[in-house]
């Protein structure tokens, strides 16, 4: 795209591009994505599993194992809210996104959406629901067909679902291009004529075409330049406010997730290890993995002021999901790991009003308890062997939050 056309794009549609120009009044009027604790869930995922079979070589391709990409995760996405999903590569975040959009059929578990269980539907039954669950892909260079014009790409969902008569598709496409800040006259151009940020806008327009209720954004900005990332994030926030869309926001950049999502889930090797609201995750995280992730983020302001945070060094790499470690999956890299961690898998335990963590030694950084907090609950002794002294308490592990939770200090169930 040449400079002239970029410039003309800005002049003609300054109504929509206003938000890109940093006016002080604009930032004051902006409302951050806040957590609405009473919002009903639009998506409720429970014990979702995805095992990819591993085939042997040779003529008879027998299944010799499974990659446990996603292994029993539960969470809720509130209506009009956004849940962030963070973790290292290979932890199953993208697989989760693809399960929810039903690009994969899950191995087990349920995904309640609008009274339907997405996990059980056949592809034919799924089709009408696909309108409401759309996806934004990571790489704007490979997710747009280079041989189709922008108009065809953005209009395709309309013709697939027979939403509007053929003649009206074009006007709807132009409307959408305008919404995402592109020139509607460019509907007959090809993707290669656009820059990375503009292509990502095309991908967003395509996802918005059918007025979805839930958008799965899989690393929507990580392929973009820093200065363009902020434009796309602001656009997504505006769209969320305007159309009341719920987001499942998958990213590895913790700062962007913090900015975008009032609730965050941290994944490690196919499991959710901690899920809580933004403030809890970023200032009072209880899981050693979350703490290590946060300490690894390079911080401009800290360095500018001359200080440097002490980093928690995670040794080694993420273990293979084909043969994950027994018990707690993080124990091989965890500095607090003890015997119990290898024997018993820590449950995702609710320890605050909106805070769940899966760790035997959950505690704030520097204040991890010396004895496992979960031992009594699980009916085991401190080493993780079955104990006759205590009986296991049945745990509630639903996708949402309960009114009662396990208080770490008193080791009792408490409520607000």
């Amino acid at each position, binding site marked *: 795209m040449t400079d002239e056309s970029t410039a003309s794009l800005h002049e003609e549609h300054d109504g929509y591009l206003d938000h890109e120009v940093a006016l002080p009044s604009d930032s004051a009027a902006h409302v951050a994505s806040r957590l609405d604790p009473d919002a009903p869930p639009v998506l409720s995922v429970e014990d979702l599993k995805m095992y990819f079979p591993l085939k042997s070589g040779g003529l008879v391709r027998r299944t010799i194992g499974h990659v446990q990409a996603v292994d029993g995760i539960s969470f809720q996405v509130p209506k009009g809210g956004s849940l962030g999903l963070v973790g290292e590569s290979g932890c199953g975040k993208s697989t989760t996104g693809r399960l929810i959009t039903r690009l994969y059929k899950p191995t087990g578990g349920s995904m309640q959406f609008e009274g339907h269980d997405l996990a059980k539907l056949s592809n034919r039954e799924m089709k009408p629901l696909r309108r409401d669950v759309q996806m934004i892909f990571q790489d704007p260079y490979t997710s747009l067909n280079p041989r189709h014009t922008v108009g065809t790409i953005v209009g395709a969902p309309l013709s697939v679902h027979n939403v509007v008569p053929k003649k009206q598709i074009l006007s709807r496409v132009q409307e959408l291009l305008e919404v995402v800040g592109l020139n509607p006259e460019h509907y007959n151009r090809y993707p290669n004529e656009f820059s990375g940020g503009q292509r990502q806008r095309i991908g967003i327009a395509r996802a918005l075409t059918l007025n979805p209720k839930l958008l799965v954004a899989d690393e929507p900005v990580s392929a973009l330049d820093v200065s363009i990332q902020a434009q796309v994030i602001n656009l997504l926030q505006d769209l969320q406010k305007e159309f009341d869309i719920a987001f499942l926001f998958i990213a590895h950049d913790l*700062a962007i997730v*913090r900015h975008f999502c009032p609730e965050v889930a941290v994944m490690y090797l196919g499991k959710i290890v901690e899920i809580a609201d933004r403030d809890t995750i970023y200032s009072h995280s209880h899981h050693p993995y979350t703490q290590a992730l946060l300490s690894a983020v390079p*911080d401009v302001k800290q360095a500018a*002021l001359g200080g440097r945070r002490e980093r928690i060094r995670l040794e080694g790499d993420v273990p293979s999901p084909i043969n994950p470690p027994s018990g707690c999956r993080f124990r091989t890299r965890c500095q607090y790991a003890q015997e119990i961690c290898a024997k018993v898998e820590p449950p995702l335990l609710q320890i605050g009003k909106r805070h769940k963590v899966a760790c035997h030694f959950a505690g704030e950084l520097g204040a991890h308890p010396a004895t496992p907090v979960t031992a009594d609950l699980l009916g085991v002794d401190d080493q993780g062997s079955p104990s006759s002294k205590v009986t296991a308490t049945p745990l509630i592990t639903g996708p949402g939050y309960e009114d009662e939770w396990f208080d770490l200090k008193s080791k009792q169930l408490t409520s607000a």
Partner: protein
Amino acid sequence: MTTAPLRPGTSPDLDHDEPLLVVEDLTVRFPTQDGEVAAVQNLSYSVELGKTLGIVGESGSGKSVSSMAVLGLHDERSAKISGSIRIRGREIVGLPENKMRKLRGAEAAMIFQDALAALHPFYKVGDQLAEAYQVHHSSASDRDARRKSIEMLDRVGIPQPDQRINDFPHQFSGGMRQRAMIAMGLINDPSLLIADEPTTALDVTVQAQILDLLQELQREFNSAVIIITHDLGVIAEMADDVLVMYAGRCVEYGTTKEILTHPEMPYTWGLLSSVPDVTASTDARLIPIPGTPPSLLNPPTGCAFHPRCTHRDKVPGDLCFTDMPELSPAKANAAHVKRCHLPDPDAIYQDVVLPEIAPDLVKDNR
């Protein structure tokens, strides 16, 4: 850092007064069918032994092109290079290929962004390391080279290096491949190491490991490092000096602390404000830089940044549209140069920009 020990193989015309690497007025042009692309223009910087220079900018701003010129990696048939690049006082520009090969790897080495693409998929990691060693140590036997490779893999923290040396690159994880790349870069003990986006493809935890490793190795080998990145966080952690590039030109250059606390160029402000911070208020809206980076085929008149600059109305007249600003020293510190017409940028930064991006820092800086 003039106390660095003399290394074998250094040229006799070693100039002790000059920093290890001096780049002066470097211009790289690529003739294309659509016209000449000036990828880098009038770039000057220097790096001393034991110091780290960070180069930041968006894609297409000339960061990689300029550092590839330092290693003489441009094809002279397709790139027109002018200006001067000196390593230990020795001129690189125009050096014939056979002499350049002696320097490349031994005196200056590079770590590439995508380790999977930079390592050869058909050869074992150990063989690739050994080859890099033997090119510059022709007397070394295969056994010596292998021993050296194992030693280097061990040094960069690869477990069981004597086994992993027989692996192919695809058998390594992303972080380990990057470590192997670093081992290859350092195997000949170069005094200058150029790391081109060394951590961009990696996870935060692995990025932290690699950055720590680079810093540790730099202290140990006392080498000069150039780190190219678009992540200001990485710069803040690693670099002593920062060079901000935009549209092929240096737009701001100074010590890291000075650039991060008193930036004087609106583009640097934009970079700082468009990145959310893990501690900042989430109510603040991200302030992106409007528009897109300019085409280098047809760069804007005057200041290359003026079409995207939100502060151009503060400059009297239409200087921004007509005149390319010169690199001029900042008010407080003469070693900090910036390319901007704004009469008092620091005041604007402290009064207008900083309260928006980091209200909590306003008082501390005064």
